[in-house]
């Protein structure tokens, strides 16, 4: 591994587009220093979401952060949204420059 690189977590959240404002607020409150969002569609337990209109659109949010922050966010999302909303999250290790940024 390149010596300049450090390990951080990449947390990816796929959820209903209606949740954007709420989830983004939560991310900031839980210590995320940034995030990236792309528009998405998909299928899952809550049925097909084809993004043909706002009520059936998804978003895909990525957060680079420390393991601690990632765990906090996952814990919070699970408690706050999993029961009632279409949402999927996954975590993985990535190498970043400037580890203090995340």
């Amino acid at each position, binding site marked *: 591994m390149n010596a300049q690189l450090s390990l951080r977590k990449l947390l990816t959240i796929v959820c209903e587009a209606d949740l954007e404002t709420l989830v983004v607020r939560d991310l900031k409150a839980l210590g995320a220093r940034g995030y990236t969002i792309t528009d998405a569609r998909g299928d899952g337990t809550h049925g097909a979401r*084809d993004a*043909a209109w706002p009520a059936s659109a998804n978003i895909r949010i990525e957060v680079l952060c420390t393991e601690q922050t990632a765990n906090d966010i996952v814990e919070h999302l699970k408690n706050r949204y999993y*029961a009632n909303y279409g949402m999927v999250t996954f975590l993985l290790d990535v190498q970043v420059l400037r580890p203090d940024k995340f």
Partner: protein
Amino acid sequence: MPFEPVILFFILGLFAGVVRSDLKIPGVLYESLSIFLLLAIGLKGGVELARYALADLVGPALIVVLVATLIPLVAFPILHRLGGFARADAASIAAHYGSVSVVTFAVAASFLARIGEPAEGYMVVFLVLLEFPALLIGVILARRTVGKTKWGPLLHEVFSGKSIVLLIGGLLIGWVTGAEGIKPLDQLFFALFKGMLAFFLLEMGLVAASRMADLRRAGPFLLGFATLMPLSAGLLGILTANLLDLSVGGAVLLATLYASASYIAAPAAMRIAVPEANPALSIGAALGITFPFNLLIGIPAYHWLAIRLKGVI
């Protein structure tokens, strides 16, 4: 022609959805058209409004809004007690039906224009006023107690929602500017209105087709509700219009407002405020059944009724 031509576009969209055509209307076009329609309806209403003394509207508006609160308050126990729907679901559906569908209103207005039936120009004000009270009632019904809800964010969500901002913004601009001042904008906002509505209805047909599948699971009770509720609410609208001495056209529009179920403001607001409610039920009923029902049967029926009931009350 029994139908408004614009309705044929809805049917085309429905058909394309049902045969699984690869016709897909980009989500961005949906959003752009809905911004256009909301703004145009607001502008048109504002221009008309300039002809009335606002003070004269306060009384009627109050009555229209108060009577409208009956809709969610009656719908809720029907759904919860009779229909066996969970509290949250019953409340959310009730909120959708208590609020209004802007596009259904637009189709009714163009139905009246086609048959040459005049209506009071200030009906758009009622459209704006009827959009949100039912949403608040829905949240109270879902929560059972007023205390627990964080009203701040909800009120913000409702009043800064795009449909309210565009409708009221359009109203104000139209009102301030007046028929003369707005002329240079007529070509976009008024001359194209019906074509844009047709385009939007094509899209709504595609969306409605995908929603109908949701409904298969919902059972016959909701299907019955989604047709009888608009009929009853439409009747209530006509009687209220008679009470206020509105014209036949005005009665049809008020009936349509009462009878229609929201699918722009309500879904987003309910999704956040009543998370436990299953949106497939409320949107499925509002968009999959009630919307086409009002377009195809409801509006002509309200007109038929409004003529027959003219003067009653």
